[in-house]
């Protein structure tokens, strides 16, 4: 079962922790907010890293959802 990243934009402040922990999936837009490099789907091998990014988001804005 694959999962997808969801950003609660009302909570995200563009701190960039998720982009540092998931450089394979995310990059920063011109204002510092996370942007998917490809689609929102997280490949199985990166899921542990995605979980870590979710847990460490200082704004609790990043979520992992079944997709």
């Amino acid at each position, binding site marked *: 079962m694959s999962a997808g990243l*969801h*950003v609660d*934009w*009302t909570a*995200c402040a*563009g701190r960039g922790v998720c982009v540092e922990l998931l450089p394979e999936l995310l990059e920063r837009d*011109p204002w510092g*907010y996370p942007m998917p490099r490809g689609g929102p789907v997280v490949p199985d091998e990166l899921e542990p890293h995605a979980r870590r990014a979710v847990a460490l988001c200082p704004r609790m804005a990043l979520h992992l*959802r079944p997709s």
Partner: protein
Amino acid sequence: MTSTIAHPVVAGGVEGPTARPLLGAAAADLAEHRRISGPIPWRDGPGRLVADVQDAGLTGRGGAGFPTWRKLAAMATGADPVLVANAAEGEPASAKDATLLTRCPHLVLDGVQLAAEATGAGSAYLYAKPGPAADAARFALAQRRAQAWDRVPVAVVEAPLTFLAGEESAVVAATEGRRAVPRDKARPVYRSGVRGRPTLVQNVETLAHLAQIARYGARWFRRTGTQDEPGTLLATITGAVTAPGVYELPHGLPLSAALELAGGADAPVQAVLVGGYHGGWLPMATARHAPLSREGLRPYGCAPGAGVIMALPRSACGLRAAAGIVGYLAGQSARQCGPCRNGLPAMAASLGRLAGSPGPDQPAALRRLADLVDGRGACHHPDGTARFVRSSLLAFEAEVGLHLHGRCSASPR
């Protein structure tokens, strides 16, 4: 129990209002409403009305066009639901919900009662702009209380005069007494809305149609409009027309005929904005006969939305008009989501430069910004603004070419 629906007879002996199901049933007070439309056709349970609304093919008239029966059916399974009738009408170019509330308040409020009955909602709110719309609702509700017309109490909540006030989750926030801004969609309002209860937010025009469907039946409703998009819609026809105002027209009416309803163009028209500030432009040269329906406008990348039809005269610069609108939309960002808070002012500035004396890479820069904000917000404000920007670049392509050479069709040198 039979499946036939009683057809109340209006004064004059005609079976219900036909050509204009809503505005044709306008009534100044409850006595007149009773004479024209009769009592509320209660259904004493949810099933049959939901089926009639499904047969009628009624879709939401607030802009998104979602099938109404599905929203009703989703509510009927929830515990202790709440109904909010939405007349926030944040779209500056739109006046149809306020017009409907002032001319047919009882039709809207009958729809509120019937939708509450169909969903099992024990309480309802009417969310409207302060002024004539909210006043008309309060006046109508007082009359209904005196006559014990309603079964479910309805409280009026005033909507702030912002573009996003009518967004579903902003409506929930305002109803709870908080600032009317959208929230993240991980928690949909139909599951957890007003004070955590399942909440149905339904546009007031949709509710008025629902009341008429309950009265006259699905087949009657389908006598106007198209097969796929039956019924009429309230359109605010504005801009370069002789008689701007709110008109009730059948789905599928050609654009040119809609402009004729409003007295025709009062100057040569270059393009028409349909669907409002999150909508798109129809170039007059190619779209004169485009049918006003979702299907008819799809080839042009447009949709009827909440029924705004704004004619732009040939004497105006389309890019300047578009820049003004994007400037407004940028100012209306709730400023909660980074891409919207930063991206919309950047798009407004970029389009402003394009409307002035742009450098050669300005159109591409603007397109990049539109792609950057798309889908990156709690609500559709960034997506809708990006769509409007792309449509402006397409519709005013020739004007862009002129501006890149230091010229402008509105001020030729």
